[in-house]
């Protein structure tokens, strides 16, 4: 039975911070089919297009019929535990710090036998288990088996916490308190047990409605943070950088502009400064300290969420500048992801369709309510996802891009 995670004590200032280590990360190229599935929370295995059998581990030819038509397809998540062990000795430095480690062999309902990490509450050999694909601290996909039914404090299992980014007892920074998402995110994070939530507000001399609401919330601290100012971002990082375990960047700056308007370049630069350069400044200030705290106890630094527009994936004409900026943010986010992975920090892209807010006033529904976005972000943190598509528009664009990116491009141009 999983014991509840104890509330972390204040850190001993004389104790050295444990440096982050990563689990083994070499994988074959084919095995990244699992990475793709794990990143979006799907359970997929290679399936032979000719004989229909599932195969594992990832390979280049079907062992049943030698067809090379092996594609990753969704698979049933059920399985039965065949055997298990608790490893107490390893030569790997990462696992050495997490011994003992429970693993087992699971016969999947779809056929193959997989080695999997075992949740502490799943029964011994013979037990039915529910499987998922997760990204480990190295960002590589691994199989995880847990019991079919909920158990108390299930999310506090130490092996599971290596694969998730649960906000429980963690301190969070939301970069833009003026964003309509801020209050909803604060509520969702508090519900998920976040220890403290810092909310950044630029140009405090400009009043805004939700300010009093935020200030009245327990566990919330409004802090100066102007993403367009390197100094402001650096100063906040000096103050609270070592106290941020989850950073949620909600920065956006939606301004309509037609490409041929004389002012479009200025608008674009302004938007870029708030979004792309803002993310850059935030990365430079908070990235190093978060990366160094990736193994700082059970509630160490764990995730960085960028809330981005799905239009960054394919330019939407009516939000041209917005699309350009978010495409650049996506690229920067990938860069950041590769840097933060060294510290075991997960970078999550929460790709959303138009939000139900003033700047998307003219866009017809469906739009994403701030609460729906906040719930999806917190759900992604708890499940350890890497790419989250939020709302019907984002999911539609995701599916259509997967199908035919050119069609998305042309249809957006009409």
């Amino acid at each position, binding site marked *: 039975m999983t014991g509840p995670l104890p509330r972390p004590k204040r850190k001993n200032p004389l104790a050295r911070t444990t440096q982050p280590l990563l*689990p*083994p*990360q*070499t*994988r*074959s190229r084919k*095995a990244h089919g699992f990475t793709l599935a794990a990143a979006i929370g799907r359970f997929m295995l290679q399936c032979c297009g000719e004989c229909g059998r599932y195969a*594992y*581990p*990832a390979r280049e030819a079907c*062992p049943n019929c030698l067809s090379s038509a092996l594609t990753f397809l969704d698979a049933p998540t059920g399985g039965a535990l*065949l*055997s*298990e*062990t*608790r*490893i*107490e*000795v*390893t*030569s*790997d430095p*990462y*696992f050495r710090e997490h011994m*003992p*480690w*429970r*693993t*087992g*062999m699971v*016969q999947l309902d779809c056929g193959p*036998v*997989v*080695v*999997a*990490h075992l949740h502490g509450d799943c029964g011994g*050999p013979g037990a039915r288990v529910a499987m998922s694909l997760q990204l*480990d601290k*190295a960002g*590589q996909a*691994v199989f995880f088996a847990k019991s079919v039914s909920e158990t108390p404090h299930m999310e506090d299992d130490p092996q599971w916490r290596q694969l998730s980014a649960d906000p429980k007892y963690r301190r969070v920074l939301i970069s833009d308190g003026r964003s309509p998402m801020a209050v909803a995110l604060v509520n969702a994070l508090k519900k998920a047990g976040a220890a403290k939530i810092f909310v950044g507000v630029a140009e405090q001399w400009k009043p805004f409605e939700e300010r009093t609401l935020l200030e009245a919330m327990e566990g919330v601290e409004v802090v100066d943070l102007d993403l367009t100012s390197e100094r402001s971002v650096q100063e906040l990082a000096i103050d609270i950088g070592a106290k941020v375990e989850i950073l949620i960047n909600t920065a956006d700056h939606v301004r309509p502009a037609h490409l041929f308007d004389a002012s479009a370049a200025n608008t674009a630069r302004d938007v870029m400064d708030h979004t792309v350069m803002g993310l850059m400044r935030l990365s430079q200030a908070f990235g190093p300290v978060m990366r160094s705290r990736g193994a700082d106890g059970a509630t160490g630094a764990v995730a960085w969420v960028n809330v981005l527009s799905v239009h960054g994936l394919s330019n939407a004409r009516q939000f041209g500048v917005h699309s350009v900026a978010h495409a650049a943010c996506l690229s920067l986010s990938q860069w950041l992801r590769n840097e933060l992975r060294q510290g075991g920090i997960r970078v999550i892209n929460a790709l959303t369709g138009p939000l139900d807010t003033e700047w998307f006033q003219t866009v017809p529904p469906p739009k994403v309510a701030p609460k729906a976005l906040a719930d999806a972000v917190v759900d992604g943190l708890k499940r350890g996802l890497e790419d989250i598509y939020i709302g019907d528009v984002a999911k539609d664009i995701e599916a259509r891009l997967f199908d035919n990116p050119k069609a998305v491009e042309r249809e957006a141009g009409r």
Partner: protein
Amino acid sequence: MVPPRMRQSYDSVVLAVPVTVPYQRYSIETAHWWMGKALRALAEGAGISHRDFDGFSVASFTMGPDVAVGLTQHFGLSPRHIDHVPMGGASGIVSLRRAARAVQAGDADIVACVAADTNSVDSFRNLLEGFSRFSQDAVYPYGAGGANGSFALIARHYMDRYGATREDFGKLCVAQRDNALRNPHALMKKPLTLDQYMSARVIAEPFRLFDCVMPCAGAEAFLVMREETATSLALPFVRLLSAIERHNAFPDDPMQVRGGWVMDRDELYGMAGVAPDDMDFVQTYDDYAVISMMQFEDLGFCAKGEGADFVRQHTFTIDGSFPHNTSGGQLSVGQAGAAGGHLGITEAIRQLLGAAGGTQVHEVRLGLVSGFGMINYDRGLASAAAILARA
């Protein structure tokens, strides 16, 4: 398809000059250093120059980046038959089988079969980390338990299914330690009691410390030739009666409970014209006692699932009812990488030559050696066995 052809016998194929380069826990030398020692001992033992070896078969995990042909230049050999057999615990018998056919056909006259590995403080971790693509993709990232973690899963399942206990495994381990105390080359010098075995620290449940082999540096080697060659060199020799190998047998078994021996054992005994009961000793591949137990079953000493009972009914020391791993086996001598697959062969040759010294079993005529190796993903893929006879 035409029916399979009867296998040709190994008539006139003999083994000579068993060589063990004494093991070290860690070595600052490379695998090549250990191979050189082994080749020199082979040449001295045969009373000829190493340049007279016209066949060379090598097994090693740590000889990279070199390949077998590169090693010929390293050691000044000019062979006309070379082989690299990267099959871990099966490589000894696989080398022997190939060398036997080469000398039988006249492709070579004297094949030096050499296995050598070094062991530096980091080489074992590197070996585990890069062992195979399936292992990299699907095993090592799960706790990085290495072979111990993987065989723990096999052992746990075998215990659950057939009722074997840790005491049964312990009995084999303790007997091997008794044997090792008579072998000056064994790295393990202290006696082992069942209590010590049972209460040792956990490595990966159900395995504890004495279930696991100790990686070390070392080399094993022997010569394969025709009887006439051995006679002309005035070398004592033993005969190869039969040998089998099989890879990736029973791929549909969800968990490994048997090895490929089951597919080929009738042929093994048939070719040799002997039965399991005729064996005077058995050298199994003992990376774990559970695998030795599986070999007792799969090589016909008892039925599937009766391995534990078989262990309970026998004693396994040199003077026991079933002399087994008389050198002490890898569990007590040490596992010098790929040389672990040759250890049983050199020990069997010594037993049959009456040259085993302290570990000599009384009055031996026939012995069985088996090999097992390469846990590529979830199971050992390669299995092999050979029956040797006193000349």
